[in-house]
C-alpha cells in the first residue's frame, strides 16, 4: 500500500536490502504437520521449505522461474487448497484478492482456498508489502502457480484416462471426462504421490491464465475469510498475541531526538517485585507481569536519568527554509522560458505527517532453546527475520517471524522496531515479552511522511498555452514528479535535503505532495490564461486514461454548471493525476467561513481507474479510505516539533479525520480490462488536496500553498 521514498539520500531510503536467501531446509523438518491460522492443517514437505528462500527479484514477488508449485500451493485431502504468500494483510485486502486469484485459476469456489500469509516458516519471501505492489507483482505469480497446478492435475487425469487433456472439464475442483463421466476431485488427488512429485516442478510462467471476461471469482466482491473474527474480537492482532508466562515490556526513550544517555539509576526499578531490567548500552528496557508494573518501573528509572541533548537544527516553523537551504539542487534549465509571454512561479510546502495506524507497532518475542519466534506488526516477515538475525548474529534457521493480520500500516510499519525490542527483553528475561508502543511513542519514534518544499515555474505563450515547465521537489521524493501534461519544454526533478526528522514511506508518499503542487499550480496557470481549469487541463492532456477519469468525474459532478454557482462561501475545484499505473480525478465542493477560518469539504466526486477490477467492494473501500485519509493531510495533519521534541504527539493535538469530517462521497470506478491490474490502495489519495485548494481559490481568490491548508490562513488575508 505504500511507496518507498526515492531521492538521492541513501540514508533516507526506507527500503533496506532484503534478507539474503537462506537455505533453511533441515532434515528434522522433512515432514511435519502444522496447524495454522483458522484451524488449517497442512503437511509441510521438504519441497515446501524451498518456499522459504527468496521468491523473486527485488521483492517483486515470486516471479523467479525456479519456484516449485509446492512452494505456493498444497492440496488438502478435504478439498481445500492451502496457498502461500509472503504478503501482509493490514486492511488493504491482500488476503482476499490473493485467495481470489488462486481460486480463479484452480477453478474452485473462493471458500475452498486457505491462504497462509507472512509466516517465514511457510511462505516465500515476496518482499515487503508496499508500493501497491501486491496487485501487479504478487497476484500474477499466484495465478501462474494455481494455473500450473490446474494444468498438472488435468494432465495427470488425462494420462489416467488415456485421453487428451484438452477434452477434460475442470470445475469446482473436479476434473471430468464428459464422454465417460469419469471424475477426479482435487481432494482425491491430494493423496496422490505422483501429484506430490509433480508439484515439485517449477511454476510455469506461461501457464494459461483466465481472461478477464471469463473471471468467475476474481472481479467479485468476495469477503475476507476472517472477517467474522474481526467483528467478534476473536482475531488476534500482533498486539493481542499472548504466550504462557509472558511479560509486558517498556523501553526508555530519550526526551528529544539524538539525546544521549549520560547516567541512570536503575536500583529502584530493579527493587520492584517481578520486574526485569535490561541495560545494554543505550538500550534500557523493563519487563513485568503487567504493563502497569513495567510502566511504573520505566517511570521510576526515567526520573533518575541524565540526558545530554543533541543540537536541534530546525523546528516545524522553520523547516521549509531549512530544507531549501540544504537542498542538493541541480542546475536550472532556462530553455523555453525565454519564449514565454508570461511566467509564473510559486513555492508549495508540505508538513511532516504521521501514519497513525490504529494499532501501534507491536511484537511478542519468545526464545526457546536458542530459537527465536516473533509475532510482529510489520510490513514484511522476512524483514523482521533478517533484522533479528543481524541483531543477535544467529543462524537464519533459528528465527521464525510471523505477521498476524495487523491493524493498519499505510507505509508506516516497514521497520520491525518493536520486534527487536521485544526480542532483546525476552532474551534477558528468559520469558516471552510483549512490546506495544504507546500512541505517544508511535507519534515520536516511528518515522514520518517527509516534509517538502516544491518550487514550480511555468511559462504561457501569447495564446495561453503552457510552453515551459520547471518543477523541483526538495526532500519528499520523486513519485509522480513528472508532469503528465504535454509541454514542449519541461524539467522535473526530485532532490534530497537534510531531513531533521526520521522519514520514510507513506501511502503514495511524494505523489501526494507533487500532485498537490502541480495541480494547484496548473490552476494558477489556468487562471493566468483566463481559461476554465477543466478546459485548460484537457488542452494539455494527451494521456487518454487521465482524460477519461477527469471527464467522468466532471460529468458526474456537473462541473460547468456548478462552477457558475461559485460564491465566496462555496467553491468547487478539481484535480487529476497518475501514479503506480493508475489514474484518478476528483471534483470537490468546499464550504468556507472566512470569519471563523473554517474550511469544510462538503462533497467529493472521484473517478478512479486501475485496470481490471479484482474486487469491487474492496476497491471501493480503498478509494473511500484514500479520500478521507487525504482530507487529513490536506487540512489538519501536521507534526509540530521544536528542539528535537514532537509537540503534538497525541490524538488531542494531532487532528485526524473523524465521522464529522466526512463529506458526501461519490466514487466512480472506471473499468478498463485491456491492461494488467494495478494496485488501487494509494493513488486515489493524490487528487484530494489540490482539488480542495483549487476550490478554496475559486471561492476566495486566495491560493493556499501549504499542506495542510489551514483555515486560519483565510482569516489573515
Amino acid at each position, binding site marked *: 500500500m505504500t511507496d518507498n521514498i526515492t531521492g538521492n539520500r541513501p540514508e533516507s531510503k526506507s527500503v533496506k536490502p532484503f534478507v539474503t536467501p537462506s537455505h533453511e531446509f533441515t532434515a528434522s523438518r522433512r515432514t511435519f504437520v502444522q496447524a495454522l491460522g483458522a484451524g488449517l492443517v497442512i503437511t509441510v514437505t521438504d519441497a515446501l521449505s524451498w518456499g522459504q528462500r527468496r521468491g523473486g527479484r527485488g521483492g517483486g514477488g515470486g516471479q523467479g522461474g525456479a519456484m516449485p508449485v509446492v512452494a505456493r500451493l498444497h492440496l488438502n485431502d478435504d478439498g481445500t487448497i492451502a496457498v502461500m504468500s509472503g504478503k501482509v494483510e493490514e486492511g488493504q485486502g491482500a488476503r482476499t484478492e490473493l485467495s481470489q486469484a488462486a481460486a480463479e485459476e484452480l477453478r474452485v469456489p473462493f471458500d475452498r482456498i486457505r491462504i497462509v500469509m507472512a509466516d517465514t516458516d511457510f511462505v516465500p519471501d515476496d518482499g515487503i508489502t508496499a508500493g501497491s505492489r501486491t496487485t501487479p507483482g504478487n497476484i500474477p505469480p499466484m495465478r501462474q502457480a494455481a494455473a500450473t497446478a490446474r494444468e498438472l492435475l488435468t494432465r495427470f487425469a488425462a494420462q489416467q484416462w488415456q485421453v487428451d487433456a484438452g477434452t477434460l472439464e475442470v470445475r469446482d475442483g473436479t476434473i471430468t471426462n464428459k464422454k465417460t463421466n469419469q471424475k477426479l476431485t482435487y481432494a482425491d488427488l491430494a493423496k496422490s504421490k505422483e501429484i506430490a512429485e509433480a508439484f515439485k516442478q517449477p511454476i510455469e510462467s506461461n501457464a494459461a491464465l483466465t481472461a478477464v471476461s471469463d473471471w468467475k471469482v476474481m472481479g467479485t466482491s468476495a469477503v475476507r475469510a476472517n472477517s467474522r473474527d474481526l467483528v*467478534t474480537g476473536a482475531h488476534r492482532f500482533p498486539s493481542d498475541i499472548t504466550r504462557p508466562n509472558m511479560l509486558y515490556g517498556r523501553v526508555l526513550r530519550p526526551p528529544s531526538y539524538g539525546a544521549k544517555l549520560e547516567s541512570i539509576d536503575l536500583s529502584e526499578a530493579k527493587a520492584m517485585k517481578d520486574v526485569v531490567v535490561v541495560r545494554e548500552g543505550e538500550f534500557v528496557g523493563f519487563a513485568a507481569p503487567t504493563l502497569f508494573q513495567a510502566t511504573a518501573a520505566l517511570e521510576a528509572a526515567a526520573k533518575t536519568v541524565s540526558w545530554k541533548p543533541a543540537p536541534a537544527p530546525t523546528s516545524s516553523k522553520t523547516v521549509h527554509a531549512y530544507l531549501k537551504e540544504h537542498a542538493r539542487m541541480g542546475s536550472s534549465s532556462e530553455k523555453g522560458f525565454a519564449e514565454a509571454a508570461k511566467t509564473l512561479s510559486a513555492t508549495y510546502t508540505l508538513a511532516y505527517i504521521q501514519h497513525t495506524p490504529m494499532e501501534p507497532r507491536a511484537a511478542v518475542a519468545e526464545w526457546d532453546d536458542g530459537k527465536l519466534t516473533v509475532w510482529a506488526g510489520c510490513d514484511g516477515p522476512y524483514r523482521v527475520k533478517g533484522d533479528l538475525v543481524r541483531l543477535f548474529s544467529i543462524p537464519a534457521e533459528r528465527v521464525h517471524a510471523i505477521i498476524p493480520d495487523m491493524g493498519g500500516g499505510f507505509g508506516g510499519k516497514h521497520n520491525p522496531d518493536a520486534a527487536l525490542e521485544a526480542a532483546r527483553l525476552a532474551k534477558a528475561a528468559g520469558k516471552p515479552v510483549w512490546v506495544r508502543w504507546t500512541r505517544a511513542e508511535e507519534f515520536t519514534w516511528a518515522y514520518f511522511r517527509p516534509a517538502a518544499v516544491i518550487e514550480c515555474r511555468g511559462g504561457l505563450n501569447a495564446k495561453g498555452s503552457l510552453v515551459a515547465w520547471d518543477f523541483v521537489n526538495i526532500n519528499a521524493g520523486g513519485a509522480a514528479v513528472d508532469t503528465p501534461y504535454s509541454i514542449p519544454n519541461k524539467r522535473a526533478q526530485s532532490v534530497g535535503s537534510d531531513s531533521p526528522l526520521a522519514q520514510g514511506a507513506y501511502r503514495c508518499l511524494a505523489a501526494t505532495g507533487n500532485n498537490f503542487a502541480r495541480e494547484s499550480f496548473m490552476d494558477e496557470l489556468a487562471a493566468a490564461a483566463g481559461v476554465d481549469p477543466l478546459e485548460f487541463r484537457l488542452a494539455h492532456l494527451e494521456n487518454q486514461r487521465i482524460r477519461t477519469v477527469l471527464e467522468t468525474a466532471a460529468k458526474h459532478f456537473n462541473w460547468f454548471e456548478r462552477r457558475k454557482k461559485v460564491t465566496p462561501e462555496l467553491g468547487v475545484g478539481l484535480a487529476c493525476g497518475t501514479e503506480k499505473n493508475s489514474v484518478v480525478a476528483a471534483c470537490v465542493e468546499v464550504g468556507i467561513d472566512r470569519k471563523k477560518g473554517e474550511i469544510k469539504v462538503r462533497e467529493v466526486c472521484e473517478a478512479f481507474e486501475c485496470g481490471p477490477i479484482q474486487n469491487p467492494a474492496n476497491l471501493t473501500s480503498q478509494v473511500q479510505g484514500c479520500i478521507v485519509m487525504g482530507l487529513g493531510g490536506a487540512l489538519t495533519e501536521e507534526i509540530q516539533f521544536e528542539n528535537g521534541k514532537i509537540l503534538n504527539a497525541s490524538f488531542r493535538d494531532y487532528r485526524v479525520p473523524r465521522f464529522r469530517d466526512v463529506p458526501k462521497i461519490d466514487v466512480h470506478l472506471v473499468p478498463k480490462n485491456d491492461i494488467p491490474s494495478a494496485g488501487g490502495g494509494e493513488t486515489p489519495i493524490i487528487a484530494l488536496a489540490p482539488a480542495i485548494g483549487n476550490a478554496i481559490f475559486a471561492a476566495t481568490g486566495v491560493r493556499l500553498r501549504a499542506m495542510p491548508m489551514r483555515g486560519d490562513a483565510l482569516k489573515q488575508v
Partner: protein
Amino acid sequence: MDVTVTLTVNGVERTVTTDPQRPLLDVLREDLHLTGTKYGCGEGRCGACTVLMDGKRVLSCVTPVSLADKKSITTIEGLAKGDALHPVQEAFLEEGAMQCGYCTPGMILSAVALLQTKPNPTDEEIIAGMNGNICRCNGYVKIMNAVRRAAGKMRR
C-alpha cells in the same frame, strides 16, 4: 496497594486483585485474556477501547479498574449469543464495514450504545454518537451504512 475488584464480564463474575489505578483495558486484556478490546491512544480520544459498563459506553483505557467494581461489563467477546451475532455485528459484516478491523470492536460497541438510546437515529445523531471513534483506514462511509442497517435490523 492492591485491591480486590469484583466485576461481571460478559455475564460471568470475575474477581481481580490488582492496583486500583490500572486501566480497565489492561485488566480485560492481561488478566482476563479478553484481547478483543483494543488500545488505540491511552488518552480516551479514539474509542478503540470502548466497552459497555452497566450498558453505558465507557473508554476502558482511561477507566481505572477500581471504578468497575460491582459493575457489569460487556466487551466485544460478549456481544454474540453463541453463534448468533448481535445485529450490529451482522450489519458490519454485511456492509463490509471494516478494513484492518482494529477499530471494529470499539465501533461496534459504540454503535450498540448509540442504538440503545436512539433506536431510530438521524445521520447527525449517528455522527454525534460515533465521532469519538477513529478509523485510520478511514472507512467511515461504510461504517455509517452499517449503523443505519443495524438500526433497521434492531427495529424489526
